[in-house]
């Protein structure tokens, strides 16, 4: 990799290239479970939560909700057990970061789960791994078995009074189970239909018990925070905007990836602050020979696209929102000038149509409807009113459903329709006169 690039900071990824780092024999001498030991022996659960709050750690699954605050919502003294659920249903197209963690450093994942379970006083952790990750499932189960044999999982962990089970629960192929309440339904052995909130899972989650759901990457940060303190974590990355009291910044490090039409797709770890351009052109290697980059979705498939001219934005939660997109999972998808944007919309709308759980009419019907309109435009059968029809569909779908899948279905395609209007008009027959264009 050329010099002069934004530097990588390997915290979560420090063991990614270490041979056999998935075994306890290699991982433990490299520091695995030291934070668990520190937390159990020297800290109270409240102190762990306090450090996580100080760290300003935000959820890495896409929404960016402050993790410490989420933990503080857990209902106490309910007389019921508390559960921690680790969301490893990484189904977001373009996202593959959690797979790296689970396959290459599963003991970090298990330790993160255990320390976090201690903080919220959970009696069991369910790691919900998507069914399409058989290797991740095997690695995690192997790591848990090793940890159990070493007294790190189960009863009286490390000889303390803290007992916690960790189980891997396989999914079976459903994007919607990445939505936290859809995941809980699935964990209970049902169809993954998201629930109406409230009650929020922290009060009534899986098996009607208080439940906290966090992403794999989020919880994998917790051991470092326990080892080095929340303030050290908060010093990395982008600090909160002092002018905005509600801002949380983008602290710590973040796994970021690039896929799609670039020379060097891959995954790296940075302190937020790298620009999307450096990520795509520097680490991603830029466009394939002879091509030009046309559009980039900064995080997964569910965020609005940015044009090549808009890439000088920092990869941070608030920074990307300011330019009308979002960090999402932090894994960019790149489309170059050979990509037909109308066909891309067909592809995206088909995905969401297939993955809609079918509970809410606007999403169940709307996603397929969008796909049909995109399809006929792509086939040259577009009608003059189709772009208006699409706009009305966007309005009818977004914000009108139980969960965010519908919004995620609208955002990318709406941004494409608006930013690449010319491509749509060019395919319409007869070509309407571009009024005001």
């Amino acid at each position, binding site marked *: 990799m050329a010099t002069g690039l934004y530097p990588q900071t390997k915290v979560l990824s420090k063991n990614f290239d270490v041979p056999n780092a998935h075994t306890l024999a290699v991982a433990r001498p490299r520091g695995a479970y030291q934070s668990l030991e520190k937390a159990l022996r020297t800290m109270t659960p409240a102190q762990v939560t306090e450090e996580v709050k100080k760290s300003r750690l935000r959820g890495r699954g896409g929404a960016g909700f402050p993790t410490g605050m989420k933990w503080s919502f857990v209902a106490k003294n309910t007389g019921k057990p508390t559960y921690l659920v680790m969301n490893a249903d990484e189904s977001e197209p373009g996202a593959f970061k959690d797979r790296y963690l689970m396959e290459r450093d599963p003991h970090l994942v298990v330790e993160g789960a255990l320390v976090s379970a201690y903080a919220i006083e959970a009696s069991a952790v369910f790691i919900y791994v998507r069914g399409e990750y058989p290797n991740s499932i095997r690695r995690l189960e192997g790591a848990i078995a090793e940890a159990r044999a070493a007294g790190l999982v189960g009863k009286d962990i490390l000889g303390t009074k803290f007992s916690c089970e960790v189980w891997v629960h*396989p999914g079976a192929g459903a994007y919607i189970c990445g939505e936290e309440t859809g995941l809980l339904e699935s964990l209970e052995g049902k169809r993954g239909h998201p629930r109406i909130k409230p009650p929020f899972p922290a009060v009534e989650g899986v098996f009607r018990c208080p439940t906290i759901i966090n992403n794999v990457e989020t919880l994998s940060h917790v051991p470092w925070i326990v080892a080095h303190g929340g303030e050290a974590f908060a010093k990395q990355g982008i600090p909160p905007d002092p002018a905005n009291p509600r801002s949380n910044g983008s602290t710590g490090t973040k796994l970021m990836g690039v896929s799609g039409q670039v020379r060097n797709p891959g995954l790296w770890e940075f302190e937020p602050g790298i620009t999307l351009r450096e990520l795509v052109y520097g680490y991603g290697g830029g466009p394939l020979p002879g091509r030009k980059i046309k559009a980039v979705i900064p995080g997964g498939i569910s965020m609005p696209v940015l044009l090549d001219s808009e890439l000088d934005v920092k990869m941070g939660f608030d920074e990307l929102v300011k330019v009308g997109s979002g960090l999402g999972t932090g894994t960019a998808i790149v489309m170059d000038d050979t990509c037909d944007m109308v066909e891309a919309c067909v592809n995206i709308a088909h995905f969401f149509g297939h993955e809609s759980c079918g509970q809410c009419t606007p999403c169940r019907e709307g996603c397929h409807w969008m796909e049909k309109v995109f399809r006929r435009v792509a086939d040259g059968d577009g009608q003059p009113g189709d772009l208006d029809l699409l706009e009305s569909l966007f309005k009818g779908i977004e914000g009108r459903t139980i969960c965010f899948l519908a919004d995620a279905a609208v955002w990318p395609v709406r941004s494409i329709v608006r930013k690449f209007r010319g491509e749509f008009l060019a395919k319409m027959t007869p070509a309407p006169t571009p009024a005001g264009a």
Partner: protein
Amino acid sequence: MTPPAVSPPPTGGDPRPREPRDANQPPARGTRGGGYAEAAGAPAGVAPASGPAKAATAAGAAAAATAPRKTPAPAVVPPTPVPFPPDDLKAACEALIARYPQRAAALIPILHLAQKRFDGWISPEVEAGVAQYLGVSDQHVRGVVTFYTMFNTKPVGRHHVQVCRTLSCWLRGAGELTRCLERKTGLRPGQTDEARRFTVSEVECLGLCEVAPALFVNEDAHVNVTPEGLEKLLDGLK
């Protein structure tokens, strides 16, 4: 069970077999799994929502194969449950159930075991057996089986080739892989050949985006696949 002949190409879902262009109207289809559309008595030609993509390998084709459904459905004979769990799965199933405070929560992991054990798919008889074992209704199990795309509701081939069709793979040439599969095996997504050597599916994101295009053959991932590489791979699968 007799293996079905090559099922007719499913409609919908896959863009190629075109549907009547009534895009001004909301489509009359359900979503996620053939169960919904079948139950709703989807008219012939309107695809069961999930179409051939993802696991609908079987589900989509199932509805298409039995279409047209204009005649009233025959009286429903409840399936005879298979004895479940078979002896070799007993310990594993009991260990799974013990993890959860509710027995029914073990359903999805147990269905995975059952699918592997019973020839790669979940028949109504297996559904009923699992339902009895976990103390839930057949309908509950049916609902779950049809919701999740990894559960097959029809027999599949020995080699289930699942090509990812979602954006990152599509941008790197997943479409060519599907065409190559059709050329090589004569199968379109959702179909199984008569000898049950192959089932071909198009699936949504497999999470192998940085090594796209990617596909799974059963549980084995193949990445950065080229059409030439795919042809070689298929030749090696007997």
